[in-house]
């Protein structure tokens, strides 16, 4: 191990800096650890030690970069650390350093908000990364700065600002997200839709249908249709089951079941949804069966429910295959679907016994 313990202050830092330039990864890591235990604890060396750590955050080896971030976070003076890390976000060339510094800022937490806001006010070239980080601490005081960034001339900054705004609870940002659905930026609209969907905000159908022609929005739009509590969304969801894109088809499956659940007091509307499942095309049925076997648990559960509404006895077999699904939500949905199909089948039996 390289031992710089006996050197003093600046001489020690200089010796550590030399080791940090060595080609030996383990020597560099040990030098970083030495920096964190010795230099960061002394007020006279904390500044230069942090500069060294930020420098080594640009190391070619990601393990060394990660070690440097962990070491910097041990610094006792969090204000100095947050100022230095936020300044270092301006890194123009070294991708590794830029991202290690961002990781450090995110791990350091909300203490970095003031330096981040100050930096953003200067409107630097790297303002997208400032915006990317600002919303991650969940503090609502950054909302005005993010809202202002929605008007930035750079579309990537606008998209980043919307993605961050959309991560806040609906009560804080819902009107801004709804307004953003009129934006000409697809990424802004998508981020807003995903935020609204996360909060299960019910949008009027008139806000959703004009966007349906945009393919990249379709999965998010299917989810939004499922949250409308409006039976008029049904034809769009049935069409969604036939989408070429797997994501849109699966979102439509879940949305159909969500729409059904949200219309609890409206038995007529619920029957309409169930009847539409009975009229499902073979193509939609085929892709639903694939989803039942291959998709994630919420999609599998929704598909099982939908297949239960089809009234088709030939669905009992595929449903029985997921009765022992490792996810209890899926197994329960399959149980209910089979029971429902059983009732239908029993009904058909009774009808066939009636005199003609």
């Amino acid at each position, binding site marked *: 191990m390289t031992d710089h313990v006996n050197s003093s202050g600046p001489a020690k830092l200089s010796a550590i800096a030399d080791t940090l330039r060595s080609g030996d990864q383990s020597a560099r890591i040990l030098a970083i650890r030495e920096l964190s235990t010795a230099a960061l604890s002394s007020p006279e060396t904390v500044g230069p030690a942090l500069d060294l750590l930020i420098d080594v955050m640009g190391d070619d080896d*990601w393990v060394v970069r*990660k070690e440097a971030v962990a070491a910097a976070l041990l610094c006792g003076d969090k204000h100095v650390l947050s100022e230095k890390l936020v300044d270092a976000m301006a890194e*123009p*060339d070294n*991708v*590794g350093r*830029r*991202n290690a510094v*961002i*990781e450090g800022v995110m791990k350091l937490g909300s203490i970095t908000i003031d330096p981040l806001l100050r930096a953003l006010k200067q409107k630097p070239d790297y303002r*997208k*990364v400032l915006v*990317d980080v600002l919303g991650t601490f969940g503090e609502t005081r950054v909302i005005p700065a993010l809202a202002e960034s929605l008007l930035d001339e750079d*579309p*990537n900054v606008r*998209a*980043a600002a*919307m*993605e961050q705004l959309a991560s806040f609870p609906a009560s804080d940002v819902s009107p801004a997200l709804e307004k953003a659905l009129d934006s000409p*930026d*697809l*990424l802004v609209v*998508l*981020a807003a839709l*995903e935020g609204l969907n996360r909060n299960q905000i019910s949008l009027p159908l008139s806000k959703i249908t004009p966007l349906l022609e945009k*393919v*990249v*929005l*379709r*999965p*998010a739009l299917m989810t939004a249709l499922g949250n409308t509590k409006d039976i008029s969304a049904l034809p769009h969801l049935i069409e969604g089951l036939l*989408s*070429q*894109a*797997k*994501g*849109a088809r699966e979102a439509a499956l879940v949305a159909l079941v969500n729409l059904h659940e949200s219309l609890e007091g409206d038995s007529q509307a619920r029957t309409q949804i169930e009847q539409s499942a009975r009229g499902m095309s073979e193509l939609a049925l085929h892709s639903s069966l694939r989803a039942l076997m291959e998709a994630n648990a919420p999609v599998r559960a929704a598909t099982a429910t939908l297949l239960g509404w089809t009234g088709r006895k030939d669905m009992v077999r595929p449903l029985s295959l997921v009765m022992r699904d490792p996810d209890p939500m899926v197994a329960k949905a399959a149980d209910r679907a089979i029971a429902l199909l059983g009732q239908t089948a029993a009904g058909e039996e009774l009808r066939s016994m009636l005199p003609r």
Partner: protein
Amino acid sequence: MTVSGKNVLVVEDSATMRSFVVAALEADDFEVTTAKSGFEAMKVLAQRKFDLVITDINMPDINGLEVVRYVRESAAHKETPLIIISTDGRDRDRERGMKLGASDYLIKPFKPEDLISRARHFLSQGSSKTEH
């Protein structure tokens, strides 16, 4: 040219951009696998092959340039076409990515059709080298 069933790995840490790219590719019948970081991408790449890799540059831990290097140095993936997508259009980053072996470099934000035409181009070429 049919791309049905062609497998694409999308490496992107932004949830919105990931949704955008996945929806664009799936609407064109690509099969898409996603990774939220370079580290996750390497785990996926260690297990299976892809017809195309699309990666962002700025990501925590292992960044996009390191993903490019890994792909080009790996016997299993060295011929796989790879497109970098980045908000950073500076010549130096583009040059660095291309020097490491990226097949193409697309600056965000891009239209879905731009991504699809590039993806189709490389799949029809069946090679990692760009002709742009």
